[in-house]
């Protein structure tokens, strides 16, 4: 590919790309994001390609391997163009039928989404309720393109914003547009991005850097992964525009190590962009030079914090530094550095293309645009959802997420990552944006949204986050290290049945300690404790009384076989790994509490029509029946 050296050449390239494509030619887009790959999407691709080859259809049907469109729960999924027919849970064995349906222009009913309420089948991707209630300005592109093909990106208007910014605008104007758009950082803090760019731009040192924060440390969130894997060029385009606006000539992408495919795709995107002249010297003939390097993290959550990330990029241990000086003034190798989250960068081409007013027309007064959330946990439709700022939690959980699986009850939604907070049912009608979430004692964070049902123990949940934070604290500040450890000790005691009266007051006092920490990890650590104590104090109290109402904390509940329901089928006894079930043919079974390890295998083994195995809060169970009353006398056949 010859290098593109001017606006005119870029226009010609776009024309050429578009003219070589027939929008009516059938194309089977197969999601090969990490989720679908885990579910066997690679075999599906092979099966489809083999079938196409066997029938000699290579020129008639295209197979496109794409990034994640969000509905990972129902993967592997495919979308058949031009009709945008969406098939879910597609298996390699379905390949033949899929190809036949494309040729005959028919629809395969059994692979369609079935509306659980109406029972109706939904043919088109955009009509599936999960998608219908979203506004997919960023993630919606994933299914439309092969992330390894720059032409696919060009065909949907890719790099047009770059051309516009570099060839038609001054750097200050670009900064102005971003400020005007009201875009706030998607990585956690929600700082106005345009202002941050301006600080870095105005810093006196002429050598500056731009960085993409793709550390995505929030355990339970994968928005950035999906963007990098599925739309690497969009992130890159945003970064180049930002570098131009800020005056940086070198950029870095810091990607967590657990994301090998993201590293692969973005590395390839950089290489291709260089070949096309979107990176390197004199980009598009504008006179602007810029190069990008990819660096990997090595498994430390705190490295997502910007000052720690900078140290890690310098090849050092990622310990945060006091701010100020902010990276905008003194960052990487002491030079002014602008760090933004992956999703923040991905929004930039959108703002340039559509204009700041169009961008700001979506959202609330203080939070503009859309936000991608990782909707996971105890919700029917798990996956990635992109919604306008200001949508209610209820709409996300019920309209998009489809509610809680089984006949379980909703308990809470957790946002903001390990240092975030929980919102109970009473807050479901809250509008989701930066300011409302903070007001509710949580925060936006990077976009993790974990739905909890009645079986999630809130004390154990708080303990889980504190254990995570204790493990990930870099240990530099005493308040962080000690404060977290002390809270964790108390929480662990409570979940192990060693809770005492007065523990809760002590916990509340301890939440004050770590506030004096250097970085937001230590500062935010009390949040999970405070928000669960505020909304679920009764669960804490139950634990101190020796009962785990959610049947999670092993010391605080028991397995019990209801004698009147047990039919002596012997299933449970055969499954029990601890030999803790006494029974036999025609004998009512009994759990030996001393031997039981609370593994739960018996509960799963007991046939639902008997439902004899139950769990009861606390340690006390009814005394077993006397030996002679345990024989089941069955009626004659």
């Amino acid at each position, binding site marked *: 590919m010859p290098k593109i050296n001017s606006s005119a050449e870029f226009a010609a390239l776009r024309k050429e790309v578009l003219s070589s494509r027939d929008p009516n030619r059938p194309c089977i887009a197969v999601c090969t994001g990490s989720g679908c790959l885990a579910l066997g999407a690679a075999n599906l691709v092979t099966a489809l390609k083999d079938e196409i080859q066997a029938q000699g259809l290579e020129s008639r049907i295209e197979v496109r391997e794409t990034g994640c469109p969000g509905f990972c729960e129902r993967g592997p999924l495919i979308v058949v163009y031009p009709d945008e027919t969406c098939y879910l849970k597609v298996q390699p064995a379905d390949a033949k039928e899929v190809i036949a349906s494309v040729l005959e222009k028919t629809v395969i009913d059994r692979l369609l989404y079935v509306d659980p309420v109406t029972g109706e089948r939904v043919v088109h991707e955009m009509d599936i309720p999960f998608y219908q209630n979203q506004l997919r300005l960023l993630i919606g592109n994933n299914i439309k393109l092969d992330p390894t093909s720059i032409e696919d990106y060009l065909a949907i208007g890719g790099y047009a914003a770059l051309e516009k910014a570099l060839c038609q605008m001054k750097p200050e104007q670009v900064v102005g547009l971003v400020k005007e758009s009201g875009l706030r950082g998607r990585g956690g803090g929600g700082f106005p991005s345009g202002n941050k760019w301006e600080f870095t731009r105005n810093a006196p040192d002429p050598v500056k850097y731009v960085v993409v924060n793709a550390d995505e440390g929030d355990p339970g969130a994968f928005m950035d992964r999906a963007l990098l894997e599925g739309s690497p060029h969009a992130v890159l385009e945003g970064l180049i525009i930002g570098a131009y606006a800020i005056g940086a000539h070198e950029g870095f992408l810091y990607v967590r190590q657990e994301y090998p495919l993201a590293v692969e795709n973005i590395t390839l995107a950089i290489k291709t962009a260089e070949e096309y002249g979107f990176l390197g010297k004199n980009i598009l003939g504008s006179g602007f030079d810029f190069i990008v390097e990819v660096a990997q993290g090595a498994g*430390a959550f705190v490295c997502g914090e910007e000052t720690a990330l900078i140290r890690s990029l310098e090849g*050092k241990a990622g310990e945060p530094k006091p701010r100020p000086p902010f990276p905008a003034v003194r960052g990487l190798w002491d030079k002014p550095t602008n760090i933004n989250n992956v999703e923040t960068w991905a929004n930039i081409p959108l703002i340039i293309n559509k204009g700041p007013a169009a961008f700001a027309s979506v959202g609330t007064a203080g939070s503009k645009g859309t936000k991608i959330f990782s909707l996971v946990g105890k919700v029917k439709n798990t996956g990635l959802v992109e919604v306008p700022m200001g949508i209610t939690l209820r709409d996300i959980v019920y309209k998009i997420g489809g509610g809680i699986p089984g006949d379980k009850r909703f308990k809470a939604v957790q946002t903001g990552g390990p240092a975030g907070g929980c919102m109970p049912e009473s807050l479901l009608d809250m509008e989701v944006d930066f300011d409302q979430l903070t007001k509710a004692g949580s925060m936006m964070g990077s976009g*993790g949204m974990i739905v909890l049902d009645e079986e999630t123990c809130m004390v154990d*949940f708080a303990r889980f986050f504190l254990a995570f934070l204790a493990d990930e604290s870099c240990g530099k500040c005493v308040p962080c290290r000690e404060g977290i450890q002390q809270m964790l000790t108390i929480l662990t005691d409570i979940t192990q049945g060693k809770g005492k009266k007065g523990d809760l007051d002590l916990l509340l006092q301890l939440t004050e300690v770590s506030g004096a920490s250097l970085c937001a990890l230590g500062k935010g650590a009390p949040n999970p404790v405070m928000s669960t104590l505020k909304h679920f104090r009764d669960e804490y109290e139950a634990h101190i009384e020796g009962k785990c109402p959610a049947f999670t904390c092993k010391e605080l509940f028991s397995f019990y076989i209801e004698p009147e329901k047990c039919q002596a089928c012997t299933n449970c006894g055969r499954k029990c790994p601890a030999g803790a079930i006494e029974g036999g043919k025609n004998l009512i079974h009994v759990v030996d509490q001393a031997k039981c390890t609370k593994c739960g295998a018996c509960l799963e083994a007991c046939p639902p029509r008997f439902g004899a195995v139950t769990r009861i809060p606390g340690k006390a169970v009814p005394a077993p029946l006397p030996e002679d009353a345990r024989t089941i006398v069955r009626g004659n056949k």
Partner: protein
Amino acid sequence: MDIGRIDQIIDKHGCKASSLIQILINIQSENHWLPKEVLERVSERLAVPMNQIQHITTFYKSFSLVPKGRHEVHVCMGTACHVRGAQRVLDTVEELTGIKPGETDVDLKFSLETVNCIGCCALGPVMVVDGEYHGNLAAGQLEDVLKNYE
């Protein structure tokens, strides 16, 4: 791991002290762990003192200073997997392999690690064996999954 290959990796990263972490990641991805001689070579070539390298290899969790088993099992303990029963998955894997997170069995067959999210949260609980993902796990399935690794 032979010295020639180590040097190749170091040179690929421009033999810069600032590339230390990237070099170690690269070496570990090929060798699965970081033997002392390797670290000494890196120290010598980059002119970074050994104590600093040791600090790095202990600060960052993904580095291993002990040999790994033939199969690396990573059980996700991230939030999404936690609320869907990751603890039971981990308990069962521990039982089946006889090792705890951070350990390797005597036959050098399995190494067990926990990880905080691998970005397949929608399929939780998730486990990765040698880079192969297993999602929507139930404790009862684990024996069958692990049986496939020799």
